[in-house]
């Protein structure tokens, strides 16, 4: 049994002779909240897509919850879930219909009660019977989170979970996610552009640049080692070093 929730070895992705992920090794502890930082094109979404099995690596291996993703996906998939602004739920279906369909896909027992429980926790009861396509960005995020929590995932992968949300809703989502991870012991791995979010939520931060991992540590360690006062300055420092090397 492997001792990490996520473990990749020499994970590489090449698109049209361009290396977008360059042999990265990841070890993510069970129960941790880890942030994946990086500028546009750093490889965050590509990494998440490979972890979800939606994108095949060119080479390297991925182990999730102790199982090989390539050969044992059917064993892992029921215990993982995700949310991403790049993927929608069917707009024509109501939130409830979406949750019922995905609940069945994930083989949830007591689905009706689970939908009710999540609706109350995520405060979406009022628009459960509205079409997903008619919801505001904040409402969509909550509904999408409800879908991603249907199977009470042991591993939750999120891509920019608070993108395009107002500060109040974003703060509510962050608090909710932390409370979920604390109460269930789930592992949260999230890509984000929001430095304050990462600083406040994550015990571990991985910074990517041009497909490579260029820095890793707790937010405080990174801030100290780069000699800055916050993660935003660390991020800018790394990004500008990159531009200088160009």
């Amino acid at each position: 049994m492997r001792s990490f929730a996520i473990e990749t070895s020499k994970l590489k992705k090449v698109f049209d002779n361009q290396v977008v992920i360059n042999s990265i090794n990841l070890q993510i502890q069970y129960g941790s909240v880890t942030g994946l930082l990086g500028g546009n094109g750093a490889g965050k979404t590509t990494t998440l897509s490979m972890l979800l099995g939606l994108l095949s690596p060119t080479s390297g291996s991925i182990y999730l919850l102790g199982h090989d993703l390539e050969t044992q996906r059917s064993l892992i998939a029921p215990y993982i879930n995700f949310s991403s602004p790049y993927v929608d739920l069917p707009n024509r279906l109501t939130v409830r219909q979406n949750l019922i369909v995905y609940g069945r896909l994930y083989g949830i027992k007591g689905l009706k009660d689970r939908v009710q429980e999540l609706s109350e926790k995520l405060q979406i009861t009022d628009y459960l019977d509205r079409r997903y396509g008619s919801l505001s960005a904040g409402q969509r995020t909550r509904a999408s989170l409800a879908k991603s929590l249907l199977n009470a995932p042991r591993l939750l992968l999120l891509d920019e979970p608070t993108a395009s949300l107002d500060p109040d809703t974003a703060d509510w989502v962050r608090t909710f996610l932390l409370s979920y991870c604390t109460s269930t012991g789930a592992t949260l791995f999230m890509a984000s552009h929001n430095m304050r979010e990462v600083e406040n939520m994550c015990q571990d931060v991985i910074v990517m640049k041009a497909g490579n991992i260029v820095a890793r540590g707790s937010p405080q360690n990174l801030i100290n080692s780069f000699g800055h006062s916050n993660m935003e300055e660390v991020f800018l420092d790394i990004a500008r070093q990159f531009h200088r090397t160009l």
Partner: protein
Amino acid sequence: MLISVQLTLQRIGALFLRHIFLHYESWPRLVEMLYWPVINMATWGFTSLYFIKKYTDSPIISATLVGAVLLLEIYLRTITNILVLFLEEIWSRNLGHLFASPLSIIEYTVSLVLSALTRMFIAIIPAILLASYLFNFSLFSLGLSLFLYVFLLAFNACWYGLLVISLLLRFGLAAEWLGWMSAWIMTPLLAPYYPVTILPPFLQIVAYALPATYVFESMKEQMNQHTSHSSNLLIALLLNIFYSFVAAWILSRAYKAARNKGSLLQMGE
């Protein structure tokens, strides 16, 4: 094992339910579903009546034409339904959610085919009733052969539909127009309304490589001469089995290519 089968059925059912939900409150989708079989039935039915009045007194010609329209609708609607239901996932940018879930590509395909067949059977009912009311033709007059015809045409349409969605998986939404076009491209070669021998010799070779051609030949033979060669239907079955393996292989390659390119996450409007 039993639990695994149960979960597989549950996932296939979940996706089937997704399509029911999609149509449940969407009257444009319901109208579109019923529209083409009825319109085609009416157009060809009245055309055949005109020809009878003008050139011949033989009602067999009309019956053959109307029967061919209905059988062709079964074939075409199944293909276009597979295409439309797959496009619904692309349009709603939902493929990523589906394929990150425990759903496998095989389960997805089975569910897609079941949903497409259900949609086709519902759509064809008004056209059958119209044929009976306006043109005094009952599709059931074909007797037990009708079930074989429907089975073989739907079988043909299913593997062909899977080839069409392989195109979309491989080339993305840019190939949508190609998908629509390819649904109809084989129709003239199937010789639904005329004998295959009308086609130029080189096209006859292609036509005889298609299972549906044998079904239409059988149907016309039955209507005109009241005889039917079961060998035609056996050839159609064997060709269908062969092509369905080829289509499954191509679909699996297209799915693999989509995972290599990352299209499952990016495909959408």
